[in-house]
């Protein structure tokens, strides 16, 4: 597990170094802070996506959830005067409820997660567009929610120490969205890798029937993953809404589920279930945002943005696979030298 994450980390460092050499502004405080902010926004719900993917499912509805809950959230605080903490909680609750709906359809009605969330993708966006009459939901000019804005878009000074020749010590304006993301990642990391729930999640994702025979309530475990995904989507909704400050539901969050899936898959989650790590997802989210950033910073034609992203993902995955293959071979040779059995080549043989 750690090995895969390491490969990704190396990829990020290599890409980062190259970009920084080509355009030193890449590592400027303001750019790093901007990128961190977006990593926070996009990383939050990628973790939820990862949990669902570990169960062997998929959640295609995230982007549409942002649109639907987002317009309602903005109207709640902007139009109806609901206090923002209440609105925030209600939005999270909305996310959890939609997650619960998916969980119900997947675990009780035995529907395929792809189908359920594809329908969600279509329906939620449609409802959001219908609700606003295909218009834009936004705040009145000058409407402001200082505490909420600080929480979502604010920055917290983080002291750092650098040698004088590098500019000396100072404070880095860390986006609070990134801080929130890191906190969530830590919690979810503990849940996934240290708690018994995480263990069950891996077990269910790999072999649901065996998990059932082991007395694990597989439905509950799977349902919990969708609920977590819904919860994080709810939180993300508020962050995105406060980032854009208004939402045009026809386009808001379009394709964002693909970012999340790409981050999770890059981070080592297998779409067949049973594999993945929170650190990997975090690194996957970082890489995707760095890629977006570099296209703009290096003045690459914007039209090539997606092509660059696709290209790096492809190369990254291939390189990673070669690395794993190489390591397994090495490990086998070492083991054999010690007279032990070989490691399984099964993992590589799998399609």
């Amino acid at each position, binding site marked *: 597990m750690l090995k895969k994450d390491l490969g990704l980390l190396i990829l990020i460092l290599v890409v980062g170094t190259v970009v920084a050499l080509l355009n030193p502004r890449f590592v400027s405080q303001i750019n790093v802070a*901007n990128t961190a902010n977006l990593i926070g926004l996009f990383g939050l719900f990628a973790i939820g996506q990862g949990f669902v993917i570990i169960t062997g499912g998929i959640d295609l509805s995230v982007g549409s959830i942002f649109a639907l809950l987002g317009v309602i959230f903005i109207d709640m605080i902007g139009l109806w005067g609901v206090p923002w903490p209440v609105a925030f909680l209600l939005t999270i609750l909305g996310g959890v409820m939609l997650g619960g709906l998916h969980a119900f359809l997947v675990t009780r009605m035995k529907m395929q997660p792809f189908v359920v969330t594809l329908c969600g993708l279509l329906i939620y966006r449609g409802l959001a567009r219908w609700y606003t009459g295909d*218009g834009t939901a936004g705040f009145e000019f000058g409407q402001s929610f200082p505490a909420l804005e600080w929480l979502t878009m604010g920055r917290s000074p983080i002291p750092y120490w650098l040698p004088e020749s590098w500019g000396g010590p100072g404070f880095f304006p860390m986006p609070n969205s990134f801080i929130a993301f890191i906190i969530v990642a830590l919690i979810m990391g503990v849940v996934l890798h240290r708690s018994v729930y995480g263990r069950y999640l891996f077990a269910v994702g790999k072999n649901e029937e065996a998990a059932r025979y082991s007395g694990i309530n597989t439905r509950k475990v799977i349902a919990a993953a969708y609920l977590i995904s819904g919860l994080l989507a709810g939180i993300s909704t508020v962050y995105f809404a406060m980032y*854009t400050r*208004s939402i*045009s539901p*026809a386009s*808001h969050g379009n394709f964002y589920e693909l970012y999340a899936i790409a981050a999770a898959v890059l981070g080592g989650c297998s779409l067949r279930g049973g594999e993945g790590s929170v650190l990997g997802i975090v690194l996957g989210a970082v890489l995707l945002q760095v890629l977006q950033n570099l*296209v703009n*910073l290096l003045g690459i034609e914007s039209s090539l943005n997606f092509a660059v992203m696709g290209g790096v993902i492809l190369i990254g995955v291939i390189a990673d696979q070669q690395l794993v293959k190489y390591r397994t071979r090495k490990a086998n040779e070492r083991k054999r030298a010690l007279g032990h059995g070989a490691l399984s080549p099964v993992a590589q043989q799998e399609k």
Partner: protein
Amino acid sequence: AEDKKTLAFVVNGASDFWKAAEAGVKKAQEELPNYNLVLKYPEQSSAAIQIRLMDDLVASGVAGIMVSAVDPKTESDALNRIGKEVALATTDSDAPQTSRIAYIGSSNTDAGKQAGELVLKALPEGGKCMGFVGLLGADNAKERIQGVKDVIKGSKVELVDVRGDDIDFTRAKRNVEDTLTANPDINCMIGFYSYNTPKIYEALKEAGQLGKIKVIGFDEDPTTLGGVREGTIVGTVVQQPYEWGYQGMKYLAAYLEGDKSWIPENKLLIVPTKIIDKSNVDAFEAELKKRQGK
């Protein structure tokens, strides 16, 4: 060359429409050797992505940005933030409540009104119109539709409905086909986005209805102009993105050099839209070709 200031023209999404603006930017570049002018597309027509593009531009040190905001309301906060860092002007769709220096572009409402006049002229007896547009919720769409409605109010012409297609050409064409089936009494169609008119043209052509239904369009897609010349399209209302690009860049450069005299009182520098009909289509096309260097 290192210390050349960079000015960026940020558009709202990929479209042929911006090719003309690009030509204007190029022309301005010839006249502004001390500047580095670039035109930037966000990879998706989404506010968040456009904001990030502008943030990245600011981070990479541009001096001025002229932007066609995907969704001005969504972006007003970001525009304010960016306006504090660099010289910022808006084009195409304005964001009046921000710290932008000025708006240099057309008035979509005015353009809509001109289209409305074309409709009235084409249907002196009155009639029923159907509109087609990409994003029903987008400001430019809403303003154009409103402009048309304002003009035809009180006349015998009625705008029955406007169908959206989310910028999917297949759906755009199918919307026209379905309209022909569902509303056979329609006798005029308005294409609000540049590609809508060609799709109307093609669908009518295939249905053998060309010429029977009055078509009014926006913008200068080759098919639209061809239809105008042929007489099967009543006319089209064109903006002058070339001028936006050209004038916008020149004015931004002037602003950076301290010249603010060009900014009008209401901060709106309206580049008028033009009606192109059979009478002036050839001249317009010739000029267009010349500018695009074709």
